[in-house]
């Protein structure tokens, strides 16, 4: 193949994409911004004699495309974050006078599934359960109050105590512009506040009103599709262990394990249900890449579709670790690239089996005691053990000091363990965390903290309703 992929990302995912390209026999080009020169995603390709261009920002589409043209790339892989879910970027990549392959879903799919409310509407129409609340954005106060009243009533009927609703900006996300409301009297003032906030920040006054669900697990279904209409899944994941900013810290595949812990509902039925529903929506929109369907599962075993991530996820590898296509472990990034170039799957769902449990730990320089405050500084020592059941994905070099760039999340590494069952995986996880050493200092000269103690503390909580 004479195809060449521009990797429009940094860090761990850029390295994973390089590896996938090499496995598929594709050439690639890297980009970086000042401050990232030490990262392996720059040093490694340079050592191999690959193009590596300094650009003004990973968010600068113009620079990325200019480099792609200059180096005669034929495709762009956006990784996760940055341009991965930007339908405008995807549209530009394929619509420009020198079109490139966008390694991800069609731009229309990104657009339609990128909007939470639109997903809710699509799902609702297909009979897929969604969080009770408004399907369309609400603009009028009277309407908002009526809807809020309806939701309070519904919760009382369901015996949810105390009933609570969420009022949030339709165009918002990431925890911005959301408020919880306990009483009907508060609805109007909060509605007004959120509406003006939404107007100011997102330019759209639309507001969403939903039941506030507090006791739940965060589950995901890993989907893969292609332009030939083939559609498979690679099981489920459980990403309930999150920092206070709703950032994932530990992910486990599969999503529930009844053999490991007891559930107050039929766990396998719920997993099958969310998988089927996810495939239903994916088939409906003609999903043609890797993607993740995020679900809320309550203690009662009720599942609600939350949103769809139209990209490769950070935690993609744990799904791959437990999946076996005719006995062989897949690489989801390779599968994503193959799908983008128009390859057929070459297998179907019945060829996919599952084996064991995999856990991913995100190693991050942060102060978990102080609101997960990100830390910058220099890493002087970074060591981890080597086992055949362990994979560590990192862009941090171990042969020199590494200065953490301050413009991005201080993610250092992903540790992925596998065990024949969850208990074994848990034990191995503990082993990994206990034998990993990250030392360094902050700009103020204090020792650099990481979240390893936090991860160890949370490890026993995985997969359980506590």
């Amino acid at each position, binding site marked *: 193949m004479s195809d060449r992929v521009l990797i429009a990302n940094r860090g761990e995912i850029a390295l994973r994409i390089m590896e996938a390209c090499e496995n598929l026999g594709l050439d690639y080009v890297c980009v970086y911004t*000042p401050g990232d020169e030490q990262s392996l995603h720059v040093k490694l390709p340079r050592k191999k004699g690959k193009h590596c261009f300094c650009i003004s920002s990973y968010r600068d589409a*113009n620079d990325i*495309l200019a480099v792609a043209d*200059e180096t005669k790339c034929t495709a762009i892989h956006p990784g996760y974050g940055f341009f991965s879910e930007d339908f405008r970027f995807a549209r530009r990549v394929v619509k420009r006078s020198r079109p490139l392959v966008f390694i991800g879903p069609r731009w229309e799919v990104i657009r339609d599934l990128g909007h939470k409310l639109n997903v809710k509407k699509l799902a609702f129409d297909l009979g897929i359960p969604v969080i009770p609340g408004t399907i369309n954005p609400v603009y009028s106060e009277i309407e908002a109050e009526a809807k809020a009243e309806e939701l309070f009533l519904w919760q009382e009927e369901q015996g949810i105590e105390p009933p609570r609703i969420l009022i949030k900006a339709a165009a918002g996300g990431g925890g911005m512009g959301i408020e919880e409301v306990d009483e009907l009297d508060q609805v109007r003032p909060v509605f007004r506040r959120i509406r003006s906030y939404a107007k100011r920040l997102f330019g759209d006054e639309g507001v969403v009103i939903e039941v506030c669900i507090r006791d739940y697990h965060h589950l995901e279904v890993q989907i893969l599709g292609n332009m030939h209409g083939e559609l498979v899944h690679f099981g489920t994941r459980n990403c309930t262990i999150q920092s206070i900013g709703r950032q994932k810290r530990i992910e486990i595949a599969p999503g529930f394990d009844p053999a490991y812990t007891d559930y107050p509902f039929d766990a396998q039925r719920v997993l099958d249900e969310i998988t089927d529903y996810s495939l239903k929506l994916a088939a409906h929109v003609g999903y043609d890449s890797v993607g993740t369907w995020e679900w809320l599962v309550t203690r009662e075993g009720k599942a609600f579709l939350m949103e769809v991530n139209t990209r490769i996820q950070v935690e993609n590898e744990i799904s791959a670790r437990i999946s076996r296509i005719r006995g062989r472990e897949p690489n989801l990034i390779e599968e994503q690239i193959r799908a983008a170039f128009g390859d057929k799957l070459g297998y179907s769902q019945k060829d996919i089996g599952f084996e064991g449990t995999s856990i991913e730990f995100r190693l991050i320089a942060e102060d978990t005691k102080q609101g997960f405050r*990100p830390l910058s500084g220099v890493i002087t020592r970074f060591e981890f053990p080597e086992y055949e059941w362990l994979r560590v994905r990192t862009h941090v070099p171990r042969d020199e000091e590494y200065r953490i760039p*301050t413009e991005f999340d201080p993610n250092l590494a992903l540790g992925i363990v596998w065990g024949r069952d969850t208990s074994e995986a848990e034990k191995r996880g503990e082993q990994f965390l206990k034998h990993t050493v990250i030392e360094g200092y902050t700009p103020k000269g204090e020792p650099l903290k990481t979240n390893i103690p936090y991860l160890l503390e949370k490890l026993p909580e995985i997969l359980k309703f506590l």
Partner: protein
Amino acid sequence: MPLDNREINQLLQSLRANPYRLYVVETPHTGYLREFLVKEGDEVTGPSGKWMERPGSPLFVLERERNPKTIRAKISGEVAKVRRELEGKFVEAYQPVLEIRHTLTQKEIIAELLRKTLHIVTAPERARYFLAPDLAKRIEKEGEGRVVVKPGEELVIMSFMKRETPIVHQGEPMVVFRLFFSRGQMVEQGEPLLGLCLEKERPYVEKLIARVKEEWPV
């Protein structure tokens, strides 16, 4: 931390001996460097006019995605070290392209001096900095050197690791005398952001400025 006169004299002397600064002009982004619009030895000017409405002298043309952009001088001075070999080539972002040897103006000498005399708020991290919106609004309204900040008021917003952290004023109420960064600028750790002074120090600082103005012809 006012300096004594001797130290100020020393500082002024060293500035007088070498009243130049070298500014390296870099490419703001990738693209083809189509042509140079200056040659070595040319005098260029930065933005000027009462409202800075007249842009600086054109230096070179950088074309990216069929958008030829004229890169202009942000500061006045003499052009040096023009990298002719880049002409017609595709360049990466932040490539040095030429240098401008800039003669310090009276205003900049004053800024240098102020860095040494004012209470300086420094950048706690290498990050991008923005003036706190409230303060920015007040400064726009009342002018630099007029606004008094009380303890607990937000001075600067630091955009760091995708989070926005406010830097809050501590200590006595002070006058925001000078800003040392522009909106959204990447500032190295420890570099000055703001220069503050106590209301009672203001006459001293103003006297200092008057002195430079007298000794340093425009």
